[in-house]
């Protein structure tokens, strides 16, 4: 009744963000970052020329930019071919149907090689699936464990042991388990995808779990007293007191988890040979053409940029959803 609708909250939020915009301040705020990037590019150019590898010297910014262009061209080219392929089938089907109206016709999908852009989309899909799976496990589990001191004492050692485990250690186990258990005929999603996703989940689960437990633990005694005086039932207590109270901490955990998920994913894709940016990097490395180094660097920069965007996205989400704006800073 008295709560504002989500839509107005979003527009209010946008207005708030736009209200403080002044061009002079923006220029001043941008000066140093732009300068920093320029100096970095300069140093990169100078250093790259002096590093010689078996594939030639390291590419400078210009070479990497060129490769980025090539990758984009390649993507457009593949799209064009796919369109042609579909078009060709349609024409042929039309001819078949003309001769025999009862004939069964179908259109086979284009199975060309995956482009760089496709790999990015695949990676994003995998990381989100893994992250969502991890969150769906970590948040409810964290709430249950956080509410019960004994359970916490029991679970804590397990968490502490598994938290620092690297994705590389999980991967063989996950691969074996997935190949043993995921034995569907004609599977909708590939086994490699499941392997990467589960590995991402296993590694990114912990920050959300730990932060949720901490958040639930930190619900103030005063608020718990209020809940007791009101005789709130267990679920009402969790839903209306514990969860909102822990939300800022949970979001902090989610942000950390998403960052880890993205880092783990690249490693997992490399090792598991599941499609995505990691595999792209690995394939280029194996390829060993003169363009490979440039392409790998494009991938490195894209990975970094996507990581940044993911983090900013989570921060914005946190600002929108959490009552405690103060906790949603850098």
């Amino acid at each position, binding site marked *: *009744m008295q709560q504002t609708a989500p839509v107005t909250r979003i527009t209010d939020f946008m207005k708030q963000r736009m209200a403080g915009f002044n061009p002079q301040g923006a220029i001043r705020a941008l000066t140093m970052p732009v300068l920093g990037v320029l100096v970095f590019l300069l140093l990169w150019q100078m250093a790259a020329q002096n590093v010689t590898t078996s594939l030639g010297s390291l590419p400078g910014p210009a070479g990497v930019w060129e490769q980025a262009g090539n990758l984009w061209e390649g993507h457009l080219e593949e799209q064009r071919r796919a369109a042609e392929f579909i078009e060709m089938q349609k024409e042929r089907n039309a001819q078949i149907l003309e001769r025999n109206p009862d004939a069964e016709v179908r259109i086979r999908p284009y199975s060309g090689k995956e482009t760089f852009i496709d790999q990015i989309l695949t990676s994003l899909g995998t990381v989100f699936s893994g992250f969502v799976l991890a969150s769906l496990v970590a948040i409810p589990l964290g709430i249950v464990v956080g509410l019960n001191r004994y359970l916490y004492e029991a679970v804590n050692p397990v968490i502490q042991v598994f938290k620092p485990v690297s994705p590389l250690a999980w991967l063989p186990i996950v691969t074996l388990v997935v190949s043993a258990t995921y034995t569907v005929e004609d599977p909708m999603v590939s086994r490699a995808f499941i392997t990467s996703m589960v590995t991402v989940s296993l590694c990114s689960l912990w920050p959300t779990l730990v932060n949720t437990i901490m958040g639930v633990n930190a619900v103030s005694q*005063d*608020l718990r*007293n209020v809940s007791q005086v009101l005789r709130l039932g267990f679920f*009402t207590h969790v839903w209306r007191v514990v969860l909102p*109270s822990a939300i800022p901490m949970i979001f902090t955990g989610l942000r950390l988890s998403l960052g880890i998920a993205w880092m783990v994913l690249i490693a997992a894709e490399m090792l598991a040979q599941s499609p995505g940016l990691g595999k792209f990097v690995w394939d280029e490395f194996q390829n060993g053409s003169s363009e490979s180094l440039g392409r790998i660097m494009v991938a490195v920069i894209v990975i970094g940029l996507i990581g940044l965007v993911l983090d900013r996205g989570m921060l914005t989400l946190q600002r929108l959803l959490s009552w405690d704006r103060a906790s949603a800073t850098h």
Partner: protein
Amino acid sequence: MSHSRPHLELSSVGMGFPVKGGTFTALEDVNLRVNEGEFISLIGHSGCGKSTVLNIIAGLMRASRGGCLLDGREVTEPGPERAVVFQNHSLMPWLSAYGNVELAVRQVFRRSMTREQRRDWIIHNLELVHMGHALDKRPDELSGGMRQRVGIARALAMQPKVLLMDEPFGALDALTRAHLQDSLMEIQRELNSTVIMITHDVDEAVLLSDRIVMMTNGPAASIGEVLDVPLERPRDRVALADCPEYNRCRQSVLSFLYEKQQKVTPMPQRTARPASDADAVNA
């Protein structure tokens, strides 16, 4: 009055906390009978177990010995018929003033009131504490006094049999406190609620109470004296300043606190030995 069954009764309540090497007795043999519509203040030095008494009545703590009866039924757990106004407001920081009162009202009256009735009841209670203008404000947008008003509105909205207040105005500045005391007197006169309030403030106790329960110092704190405050209501703080009866009550509480129950805190004494040790090291 003394023949009728009391509204609230504490009988030989004792409280012990387990500590290393035994039990720490915080309270011993606390007996108190409170009538309906009475305003009782609990006063005493800090650490004398006032809050423990209040928590036992609230049901947030169980007495080790003795017990608490409300309308003849033993208090075993917290409940909305014994609403508490906490010292530091204890509002949900993510809910508006309206939302905070709603949380209580929805829980207590979910069966007996329709949605519209509940809405009116929430607004009515917030207006009672003069917070009708700030329904949508969240606690961090309100001043300390306003938060405490919302806390009182939330407690009143539960329609408690007894309203328990744990130093409700302790954290407020003097002017705000006076303002809220006046509001509380007004509300109490209107609703004739039974109130038990912890306070450190002698003037507050005399101004608001029908009876002042003075507690001895712990450990094993108990009720030292109970003072009747026979001042007529409504009471006016300015007029009372010159009233002999008011000053007699005030005098009596002050003398209990600062003469009979003087809190002796030994000053940390410097002994000669560590100094000489230090000298020896330096030398």
